[in-house]
């Protein structure tokens, strides 16, 4: 057990601090809503140049080219967070498409797409889920029919965030209708400006359109823009989905949310008494504090395992389930402690924290459902983590 980073890392930390001191005035104030703003693009290029973004992506593809070192990544994150500076861009192109191309793309695909994606010049969206294919993603029905050198795509995707602002999509389509369901899927990339694509905003229970639906009607796409070959789409997608699930349930989000609730309860009053003095809400706060701490230390443990390239086993599988639930419970406490003020929303007078708590309470429920429902998570934990049997296949009726 050693919570210090050691001299090499402390030196690195100093470098990061020096960078921050020298460049903090260049940090963008306005990030852009749907696409990165001009100042965000400038900032991103600066970060890549110094290795604080795209750190481990090879230089030849527009990255910084450093060896992977999870502790250094963490130090960068810590220092930027302490300095309240924004990190580099974080979007599905960078987190999902780039690793996929690096691992499975052709040299031409890598050359063409990685660098502009990293720089923020090309914005991607992800075309995986369909209305009829959520938990059972492999049942997806969007058809890509051969027509000469092209595919003609018809079907519908859902939960496609930023689709309305994206240049490109990486998309799962069924190219082999006669193959088994997992083997008939291909991973295809194409422009969102291709004729026949319609994007409709998808409003959620929060009242905002955080996602879109995307409709494909006879969309013509060159066959050569498949990644990793026909029928390989399921395996391509799984490699990156794993990555996405790891991001959900982040304990640092819970940590900063906890801080906000403590601040709320220390300042907000009811009948002149501070909320923190209410024994019931205080006890709930303390229960949640313990859970947040446990998840944060659990995160450090996983980080250590990653750094040592050890398999953390079941410890990693539980993060999404526990983390999302914890965030939801934190929001619930804030709402309850606020009492009637807790139900205010939108632009209401007397609104606290811009209605954040209600928004989170609802959006977190979406996260509990999305990226593998709680039920799917429990299947995974019991099967992969505890070695329990899969459910038997039903007999044909």
């Amino acid at each position, binding site marked *: 057990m050693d919570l210090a980073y050691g001299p090499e890392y402390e030196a690195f930390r100093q470098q990061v601090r020096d960078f921050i001191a020298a460049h903090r005035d260049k940090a963008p104030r306005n990030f852009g809503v749907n696409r990165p703003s001009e100042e965000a693009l400038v900032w991103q290029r600066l970060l890549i140049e110094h290795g604080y973004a795209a750190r481990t992506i090879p230089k030849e593809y527009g990255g910084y080219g450093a060896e992977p070192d999870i502790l250094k990544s963490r130090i960068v994150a810590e220092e930027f967070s302490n300095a309240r500076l924004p990190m580099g861009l974080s979007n599905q192109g960078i987190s999902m498409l780039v690793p996929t191309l690096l691992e499975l793309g052709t040299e031409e695909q890598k050359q063409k797409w990685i660098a502009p994606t990293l720089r923020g010049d090309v914005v991607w969206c992800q075309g995986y889920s369909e209305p009829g294919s959520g938990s059972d993603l492999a*049942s997806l029905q969007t058809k890509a029919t051969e027509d000469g050198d092209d595919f003609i795509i018809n079907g519908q995707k859902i939960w496609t965030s930023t689709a309305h602002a994206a240049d490109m999509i990486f998309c799962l389509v069924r190219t082999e209708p006669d193959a088994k369901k997992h083997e008939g899927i291909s991973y295809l990339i194409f422009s969102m400006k291709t004729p026949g694509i319609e994007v409709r905003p998808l409003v959620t229970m929060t009242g905002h359109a955080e996602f879109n639906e995307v409709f494909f009607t006879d969309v013509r796409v060159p066959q050569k823009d498949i990644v990793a070959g026909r029928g390989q789409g399921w395996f391509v997608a799984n490699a990156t989905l794993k990555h996405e699930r790891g991001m959900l349930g982040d304990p640092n989000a819970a940590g900063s949310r906890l801080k906000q609730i403590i601040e709320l309860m220390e300042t907000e009053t009811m009948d002149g008494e501070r909320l923190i003095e209410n024994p019931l809400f205080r006890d709930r706060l303390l229960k949640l504090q313990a859970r947040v701490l446990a998840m944060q230390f659990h995160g450090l443990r996983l980080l250590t395992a990653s750094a040592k390239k050890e398999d953390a086993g079941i410890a990693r599988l539980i993060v999404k389930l526990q983390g999302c639930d914890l965030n939801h419970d934190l929001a619930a406490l804030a709402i309850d402690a606020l009492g009637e003020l807790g139900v205010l929303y939108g632009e209401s007078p007397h609104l606290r924290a811009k209605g954040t708590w209600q928004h989170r309470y609802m959006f977190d429920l979406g996260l509990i459902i999305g990226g593998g429902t709680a039920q799917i998570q429990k299947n995974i934990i019991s099967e992969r983590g505890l070695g329990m049997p899969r459910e038997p296949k039903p007999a044909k009726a």
Partner: protein
Amino acid sequence: MEFGLSEDQRLMQESVNRTLEKVSPLDRVRKAAEAREPYARDIWAALVDLGVPGLIVPENEGGMGLKLLDAALVSEALGRYVAPAPFIATAVMAPLALIGSASPRQQEAFLPKLAGGEAVVGVAISERASGARDGAGITASGGKLTGKALFVLDCGGADFYIVGDRDCGLHLVWADAEGLARTELTTIDLTRSVGELDFVNVEAEPLVSGDAKTTTRRMLDAGRVMLAADTLGAGWRMIEKAVDYAKERKQFGRVIGSFQAVKHMCAEMAAELEPGRSLIWYAAHAFDEIPEESSLMAAHAKAHLSEVGRFVARTATEVHGGMGFTDLLGLHYWFKRIGLDRQLLGSPERVRQDAAVLQGWAAE
């Protein structure tokens, strides 16, 4: 001994449900919510036709002279159909204020109006039920009111208001009175109007014929039972929707309702929610027949349904998967209705504190 609904009550419940099924479909609810209608006038008109505004108004004042249990059945139906219509203040708490504390002259002037659905009435006593925030509180002096009231029920579009002051006095105030400003408070639930009233030396008509403290207590008890019933109706509708969805939605080649995890979620919701129905029935019955138990039972009904309601709202949404999270199915109208019920007229924690005081387990 008969613990249950009478034949008349069942018929009334069916008729309210049938009417709301027709006049308050999801599309209509959505339209009212999106346009921020203070309330849906057509739905209100249908309720007036059914006699809902005069439900508990005595027959000699033009009402139906029914019991709070009847009102609870209506409230359950309104929750079931997330009906964007005034009810809890207009048809329950305001009549109780007038019956309890208005002079014969005032009763004669206002009760038939109410019973006939000619007026929508807001009620401003949240500070007594939930505690005071942001400097709220009304001071009465020389027949004039000054101060502010938050979380006024049935606020938007009301013709007049019943207002509780700091000293527990009750007053009647016209909506167009000079010095009165009305502000809509936006909550998660866009099907019911909740507002703020600001008073600067506003002319008011005091209600002084009965003990105002007792009347306020009665209004609060009744209001809490109504909110509990609203949650019961909304919650059961969510369960039914979850079951129906689970029977249709297929994943992995089966309807998801055949997966044990989903079945058990539905079973747990039903098992948790259903006993609350009897608690509400009893609380409503006690309000009319066993007054010494009324406040305690109302508190328990409100707190219990709030807790169970939250569980049902979340779980039913989860059963719907991603679709439950979207606006497409409109399931969130029920989710939010239950969310607002929880905090109005006292959060569960606060209501249980009342129940502790009532039993001598805690100091006031």
